[in-house]
């Protein structure tokens, strides 16, 4: 296990707490912004954890999440624009 990558992953997970507060307490637009922020951070967390535990197969997950972030984010945004 690589300590630096693990520590960075934990620190980045802690950095999602302010965005979680925004999602819980902010208006709808701010909540979508917080969601996009957390998704971006999670891509990095998955890559850091895969590197920290030296599992090459886990590097598929950040790639998948980065692709799904685009589609999912656009779905959220369009739903907010049209229906919410």
């Amino acid at each position, binding site marked *: 296990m*690589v300590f*630096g*990558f693990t*520590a*960075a992953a934990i*620190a*980045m997970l802690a*950095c*999602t*707490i*302010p*965005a979680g*507060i*925004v999602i819980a307490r*902010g*208006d*709808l*637009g*701010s909540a*979508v*912004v*917080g969601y*996009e*922020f957390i998704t*971006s*951070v999670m*891509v*990095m967390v998955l*890559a*850091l954890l*895969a*590197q920290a535990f030296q599992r*090459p197969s886990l*590097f*598929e997950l*950040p*790639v998948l*999440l*980065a*692709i799904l*972030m*685009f589609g999912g*984010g*656009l779905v959220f*945004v*369009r739903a*907010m*624009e*049209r*229906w*919410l």
Partner: protein
Amino acid sequence: MVREVCSDVLLGLAVAIVLGASFGVLLMRDAYQKLHFVTPAALVAPVLVALAVLVQMGLQENTGETCLALFFMAIAGPYLSHATMRAIRVREKGDWRPGAGRRAAASGAAPASGAAPASGAAPASGAGAAPAPGEGRER
């Protein structure tokens, strides 16, 4: 040893950027200002993480997949930011174009072509002036 120090420095920079961006998202006033702080976390910090993996592992499969994730994030980030800002503006003003609210108000006050405006007899200004989402917009 040098590789570990370099990767740790890069990771520390990435964490610092994400930390600052998270507080920016928390402390800014409205969604437009908050959205500016997503970009450092979605673009700059992943570059630093990919560089840290590259320094640690060299040119291997792990580095390639991290760079692939970075590539997708770099592609998706600007589109998502633009779409988010457009959606927030449509929710607030009824249309994303500048001056569209004034045009809608003018057509609501005196419809020239005889067609009823989409928002009916709704007030033309103030917080209640925005039409319901999905109503009265051109695409």
